[in-house]
């Protein structure tokens, strides 16, 4: 964990209520599947945002405007400095992926799949990617995933683009050895029930500190109590109680 100053390189809208922010700073502490916690002037608690891409000194975050804090973030201009706590959470374990990992991202859960896809393809794996959105106007990063060489399927709940339905409706279109997923809890539950292999789930919860001190985001697992921010956000399928 490091508390560092990053500068905004760019901040732009890429889909409905969805923004991509590129930050410049010391990324040495940042791992795939982790999150950062951003101080926003005028707000007491920081905003935890998952890591979408990290390359050299560039950290890319994709966030949805869901409240007043992210609204302020959406209006930030290039050159603005931000205080960012980096290196938070456990991140994904890539060693378990097998040759044909499946990456399933839903809405604001899509971004962490991108860095994961980059690292898996760099290892010579051929990931399949299922991206779920409510509607066509929310779809983002389909081409970015394709550019990595992944087999990409997009599902929209209203059928306005790609497969009509939920991410699980596309499960029969892919062959996989292991999976990684991030998204809203109902989606994670559906993936839990429909998946045929083991896998890793990335969770979201309201956090106080983001680094394990306050016990604000605890959950029960088969292996005891865990803090989503410190012992998670990634939990293995076998330990989740649903």
């Amino acid at each position, binding site marked *: 964990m490091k508390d560092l100053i990053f500068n905004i390189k760019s901040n732009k809208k890429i889909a409905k209520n969805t923004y991509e922010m590129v930050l410049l700073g010391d990324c040495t502490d940042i791992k795939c599947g982790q999150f950062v916690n951003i101080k926003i002037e005028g707000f007491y608690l920081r905003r935890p945002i998952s890591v979408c891409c990290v390359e050299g000194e560039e950290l890319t975050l994709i966030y949805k405007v869901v409240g007043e804090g992210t609204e302020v973030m959406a209006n930030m201009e290039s050159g603005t400095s931000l205080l960012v706590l980096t290196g938070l959470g456990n991140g994904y374990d890539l060693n378990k992926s097998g040759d044909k990992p499946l990456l399933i991202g839903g809405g604001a859960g899509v971004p962490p799949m991108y860095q994961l896809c980059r690292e898996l393809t760099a290892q010579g794996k051929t990931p399949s990617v299922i991206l779920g959105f409510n509607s066509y106007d929310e779809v983002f990063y389909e081409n970015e995933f394709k550019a990595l060489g992944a087999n990409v399927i997009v599902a929209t709940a209203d059928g306005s683009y790609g497969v009509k339905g939920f991410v699980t409706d596309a499960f029969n279109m892919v062959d996989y050895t292991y999976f990684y997923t991030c998204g809203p809890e109902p989606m994670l539950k559906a993936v839990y029930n429909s998946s045929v292999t083991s896998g890793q789930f990335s969770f979201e919860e*309201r956090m*106080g500190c983001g680094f*394990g*001190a306050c016990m604000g985001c605890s959950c029960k697992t088969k292996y005891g109590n865990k803090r989503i921010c410190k012992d998670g956000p990634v939990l293995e399928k076998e330990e989740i109680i649903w």
Partner: protein
Amino acid sequence: MVSLKTSLCGIELDNPLIPASGTFGFGYEFAEIYDINVLGSFSFKGTTKDPRFGNPTPRIAECKKGLINSVGLQNPGVHKVIENELPKLKKCFFKPVMANVSGFSVDEYVYTVKMLDSEPQIGWFEVNVSCPNVHGGGMSFGTSPEAAAEVVRSVKAVTNKPVIVKLSPNVTDIVAIARACEEAGADGISLINTLLGMKIDLKTKKPVIANKMGGFSGPAIKPVAVRMVYQVYEAVNIPIVGGGGVESAEDVIEMMLAGASAVQVGAANLVDPMACPKIIEDLPRVMEKYGIKNLKDIIGGAH
């Protein structure tokens, strides 16, 4: 040269800074990012007789200038604390630590203190009387002078270490409760715990916190804390640990002027893990600005 030294119930502190219980775990998360031996001490995570998962989530709600928490005393129970947490604490902190204990009956307080009493690193007990008394109709021990005094008397009977009582501000007369604790043998008073609060989400039109209410802390509560420390200082002769919304060296000085011998920092640790070392580093500059040579000399200076 200025001096940050102070003392609390006969134990010398290098400086008055004590991270508050529930915002600092058992210290080792913070030891990853700074040497926590720069602190005066810290109060470890509220410990109970039995393990507790705590309350359902969401447990955290952000507010203006603060946050509401409803963690519900999640902790592994005193036996696991002794077995797993204290050995890890010992590896990164070499000063006396404050043991924060809670209970839902007088017997539970006594049990937990008895178990921890033989741990050499524990310098003080900080007895949290804000929990509901399950044998007293669920009313918090800290809202009745008699119930608070009974906890103090019972705990004092099983330890020779200083017993500091952490008081709840959610009472009509904090002075009466502080006096009752002093008469029952308390060695110090710690205040304030969080203020009962609520936050309603305009989208869902329901309280954010799963348990609806929670404890509000952060800079917004500081004037309430300063006032209560001031009032209690006038009423008792035992030392006071002041806390509530402290996030700067100026706040530390204000709390000491009100009557605090040592100062707790709570919510600030959660938004800036470096909050305490930053305050300690800044204290000499602010002391010089206000013509203060020894922090010890200003305790209760506002009276």
